[in-house]
């Protein structure tokens, strides 16, 4: 089966153009034959078009960049596929770009793997592909290679997308989850839980409507602004599944430190807080897709905060806690009520199929 979206290189003798408006994915679209070549050319290659993709080979031949490489991969199975603020397409681009960017890297290239379910409307597929193309364009990255497979009806859920990203890290940038130090401050770039609650509100069984919009966004611009400020940043993470709580527990364990959050300082959109209250969820555990957790040297916290607030994706940034010594690596929080509690690892599954 061809692995390439080889735009421009395939035969020109199709019987008729893809019927995107009424057509549906069928098994032939994954069979390696003409139908597949046509789908790739007319849909994927047309949308993602760039020099690397146009090479038309099984793999993309890429020029070696200056600096260390970062590579990250992310699978996307979100349900519903379209939600306020985005869709699985732009999410699959942002998600992987962010995994690359939090390493301090400039994202360069993406691959995209699609698992399509037989019967999936081509119009929806086109919408998703266009959304990916748009997100990649805005982020300045190229989708340079990809693959498409089709599974029988009932064996998938419309479309699953896996993206892999490659980026390059400047020599002077050293970010890692094990670099949080006692005395560091903890910052977030904006309101917590927006993505997860936007998805949750769409689930039909819950029957409530809200104006909550997903925060899905590519963070490398914000990260570049932050790093350019000269603040001594130790760790960056994007708090996706499991939310801020999970991300901080990961960092605390990796760095061998404890953390103390201040509940009052946490930026949470009132709509999200209300929806969480209603459903019995804790916004600290709800997924974000366009937020940044920053652990920075204590002395540079204000500088990092100012830099983030100056960027459109960081206007609601806040200093939310500190790193301290704790052999148990607990993440704790002083509650707005005046008590103290642990902010533990998420146990079980809070919200399934969120990204």
């Amino acid at each position, binding site marked *: 089966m061809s692995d390439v979206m080889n735009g421009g290189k395939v035969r020109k003798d199709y019987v008729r153009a893809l019927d995107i408006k009424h057509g549906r994915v069928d098994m032939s679209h994954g069979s390696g034959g003409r139908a597949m070549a046509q789908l790739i050319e007319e849909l994927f290659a047309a949308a993602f078009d760039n020099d690397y993709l146009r090479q038309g080979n099984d793999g993309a031949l890429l020029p070696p960049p200056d600096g260390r490489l970062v590579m990250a991969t992310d699978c996307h199975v979100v349900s519903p596929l379209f939600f306020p603020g985005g869709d699985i397409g732009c999410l699959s681009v942002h998600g992987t770009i962010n995994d690359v960017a939090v390493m301090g890297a400039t994202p360069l290239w993406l691959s995209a793997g699609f698992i399509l379910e037989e019967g999936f409307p081509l119009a929806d597929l086109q919408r998703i592909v266009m959304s990916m193309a748009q997100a990649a364009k805005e982020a300045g990255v190229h989708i340079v290679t990809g693959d498409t497979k089709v599974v029988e009806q009932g064996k998938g859920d419309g479309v699953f997308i896996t993206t892999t990203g490659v980026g390059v890290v400047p020599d002077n940038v050293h970010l890692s989850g094990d670099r949080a130090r006692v005395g560091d401050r903890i910052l977030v770039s904006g309101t917590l839980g927006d993505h997860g609650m936007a998805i949750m509100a769409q689930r039909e069984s819950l029957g409530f409507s809200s104006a909550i919009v997903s925060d899905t966004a590519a963070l490398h611009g914000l990260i570049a602004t932050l790093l350019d400020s000269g603040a001594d940043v130790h760790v960056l993470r994007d708090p996706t599944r499991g939310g801020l709580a999970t991300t901080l527990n990961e960092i605390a364990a990796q760095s061998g430190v404890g953390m103390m959050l201040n509940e009052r300082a946490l930026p949470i959109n009132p709509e999200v807080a209300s929806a969480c*209250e209603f459903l019995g969820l804790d916004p600290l555990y709800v997924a974000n897709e366009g937020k940044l957790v920053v652990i920075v040297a204590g002395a540079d916290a204000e500088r990092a905060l100012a830099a983030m607030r100056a960027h459109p994706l960081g206007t609601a940034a806040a200093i939310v806690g500190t790193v301290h010594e704790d052999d148990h690596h607990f993440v704790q929080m002083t509650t707005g*009520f005046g008590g103290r509690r642990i902010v*533990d690892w998420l146990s*079980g599954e809070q919200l399934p199929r969120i990204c």
Partner: protein
Amino acid sequence: MKYVDEFRDGTLAKNLTVSIAREVRDRDYSFMEFCGGHTHAISRYGVTDLLPNNVRMIHGPGCPVCVLPIGRVDMAIALALEHGVTLCTYADTVRVPASNNLSLLKAKARGADIRMVYSAADALAFAQQHPEKQVVFFAIGFETTTPPTAVLIKQGKALGLQNFSVLCCHVLTPSAIANILESPEVRQYGTVPLDGFIGPAHVSTVIGSRPYEFFAEEYRKPVVIAGFEPLDVMQAILMLVRQVNEDRAEVENEFTRAVTRDGNLKAQNLVAEVFELRREFEWRGLGLVPYSALKIRREYAEFDAELRFPLGYRAVPDNKACECGAILRGVKRPWDCKVFGTVCTPENPMGSCMVSSEGACAAHYTYGRFKNIEVVSA
């Protein structure tokens, strides 16, 4: 968040802390919050940090998932795995450990059709949409969740649904309180000092405050019905301390914004129409408690999953190392249990108190276990 933040206000909490500290005398106070909702609020907001050291909160058995005996979960699993039904359940229930290393979640991974619902009505809607499937609603909970189940059964009957039934495990709060008060630890030996109760919030909106009057009179225990917000809990503790100091044993209502003396008569009538008392019911931790649960009346027998499917009930003892029973009765505290935080964690619960976030062990593990490390508990 309007109507919520007001009840979580840190400044008001400080004032209450001062009032409680001023009120307490040179003695110990032990109060049981019956409901898991209170347990959760106490742990999540760090309420114990605001209480004097001589006020101890005992976490009671009012967590519907925690008191569900293994045998009942086994029945639900058998329905799904052996009888091929679609089992609709509230999400907390799916992780309760059952026999043979199973839980509903593990049964689901083995092919059982188990659906998590937010509302009981979703189960009925699912049955209507899938007439080819036998759909069973796994009905658990105290008086709060019972009226919705009654409505479902009545609707099912009105619609003439042939493929819908209910595995009824609804239990009654007053019977559980009576059981605790009658336990030898409280009544005879006094090993569980119990100076009063924080009465249920949501349950009391349905049953009212009247049923607790018996406990105040007969057992001389003060009861303060309180809402589930942390300020409600603090206010209730203050009221309990005052009652103890003044040697009163009365039912007081802190939760007047939702609870009346008679409760919700419409809901009570619905429940009485559809359900009747069971002669006895096994509670996890409390054992067999007479007249402590409900079963479906004969008029609605066609909706009783226990009659529709050949299901036998088999009582299954808890794991020997598990102290859930003693913890639910207030005899032990979570950290007194050998397996707490070692082999029994929220990821791998051995006992039911570790399953639901309202369970005493899960709440303490998730929110408060740092306290055992810094302070040696008394």
